[in-house]
């Protein structure tokens, strides 16, 4: 998780409800006041710009809000930041998270699956503790990785 502390990226974040589904009593919400939500390709979601401004990652969680100590998944699309409509080409995505105040990450290693249309699905995530989590999307093209990152508070 040490890399998670590098930057907070352009955390214009919003965790958007998209995929429906129920959730436990415990609810998650963005820890920081969401910056102006940037429209994404599907027009209904919001996302985060990567640190160097190359990509715009739009994502949803299922369930939404993120439950505490239960598996959830993320569906994301990596867009070209200039257009915010066209999926970025030739990119890979990795997803990780940790609690910066506690110096630990998740106890699981999520798996990212590539879907059609430039979309990705990360499965197997578990935020096992209430509190503030940093959620990071590492977008890699060739040998260059940029991170889009946000904070999520779970109670």
């Amino acid at each position: 998780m040490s890399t998670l502390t590098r930057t907070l990226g352009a955390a214009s974040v919003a965790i958007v409800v998209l995929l429906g589904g129920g959730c436990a009593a415990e609810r998650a919400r963005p820890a920081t006041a969401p910056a102006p939500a940037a429209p994404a390709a599907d027009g209904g979601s919001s996302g985060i710009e990567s640190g160097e401004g190359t990509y715009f990652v739009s994502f949803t969680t299922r369930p939404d809000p993120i439950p505490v100590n239960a598996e959830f998944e993320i569906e994301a699309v990596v867009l070209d930041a200039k257009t915010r409509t066209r999926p970025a080409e030739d990119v890979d995505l990795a997803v990780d998270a940790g609690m910066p105040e506690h110096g630990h990450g998740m106890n699981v290693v999520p798996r990212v699956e590539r879907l059609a249309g430039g979309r990705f699905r990360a499965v197997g995530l578990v935020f096992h503790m209430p509190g503030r989590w940093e959620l990071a999307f590492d977008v890699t093209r060739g040998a260059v990785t940029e991170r889009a990152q946000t904070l999520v508070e779970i109670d």
Partner: protein
Amino acid sequence: MAALALLLSAAAAAALGDGSAIVLEFTEREIARIRQHSPIPPAPDDPTNRVQSDPAAARLGQFLFFETRLSSNGRIACATCHDPRTGWSDGKRIAEGIRALDRHTLSVRNAAFSRWLFWDGRADSLWAQAIQPIEHPLEMGSSRAATARLVAGDLRIRDAYSALFGPPGDPGDPREADRVAANVGKAIAAYERLLVSRPAPFDAFVEGLSDRDPAKLAAISPQARRGLKLFVGKADCRRCHLGPLFTDGEFHDTGVRPLSGGTPSDPARMSGAEALLEDPFNARGRFSDDPGGERARRLSFLSVRSEDWGRFKTPSLRDVASSPPYMHQGQLATLRDVVRFYATREGALPPGHHGETVLRPIPLSDIEMDDLVAFLESLTGPEPEPSLARRPSSP
């Protein structure tokens, strides 16, 4: 006038008698957090064990749980260390089977809720857990082959086993011995699934927060209520002791020093994860009744990590007062000692280079520590049915 004053006073008392005053001791956020801890749900389904809910399997499992012939010396049963009279643990600091081990005996009560079993999480189901002590050289010191011989050789056990799993084969065949061991584990698991906490005074109190029934709100003392407020607030115990079972089911380094002194040498979760992934009885193994299911899938997200070195599973706090001592080597004798350890961090080891920093000193007064202990004691419910706490007359 005096009579009128008395009447008004009585009216005021009656007004408070609806429980509002007690409810108002807590903020909305505190109440929302408190509700996350109650009621106790049913134990989660385990499709890897097809007899998990079969009463005949539970009866056989109960018989075997109290069966000393499963040990190499004929003197140790599961119930020897998981004694119903001592909170389904043994009351000792360090477990003693055939010989002394190096960890405290975890209670089997509520084990059915565990995502990972043992202090190091080296099993992922109740039935896979139940197999290991039987063949552990320091615990029961037996073997799968000896277990298979017992099942094949005792007519009553054989009949009960055959009705559930088909007749046992040649105990000398290692594959058959594995199969019998798995099925013995599944029968014991069917029994252990019944060993769950029953509603405690705390649960009545939580109901009272909703319906404001004064009797329910009085189920826990004012001192315990203060402790509860600390638990979900200033003391932040819920960081790891989550949900109705008061555990995240995960692994942490509490910094408690080993009984032997010196630096810790137990790799705990790091080796537990490795053992689990290699365990032939895990959820994706050939003895699982659901090798492609959710539990098997969960294993695919697990990894062996150096930062897990020395991390032990968070125990449930349900009925915690009934099973001292505490911590993974029973280092702390009383709940008061545990609360004091977490509050002051006195004597705690510094975090290692991968160490998480969840635990920091909490400024609690002696009175507040006592309040927390009172709350923890309010998590004690009635014991499971007496019929579950003894060996049945037949399997």
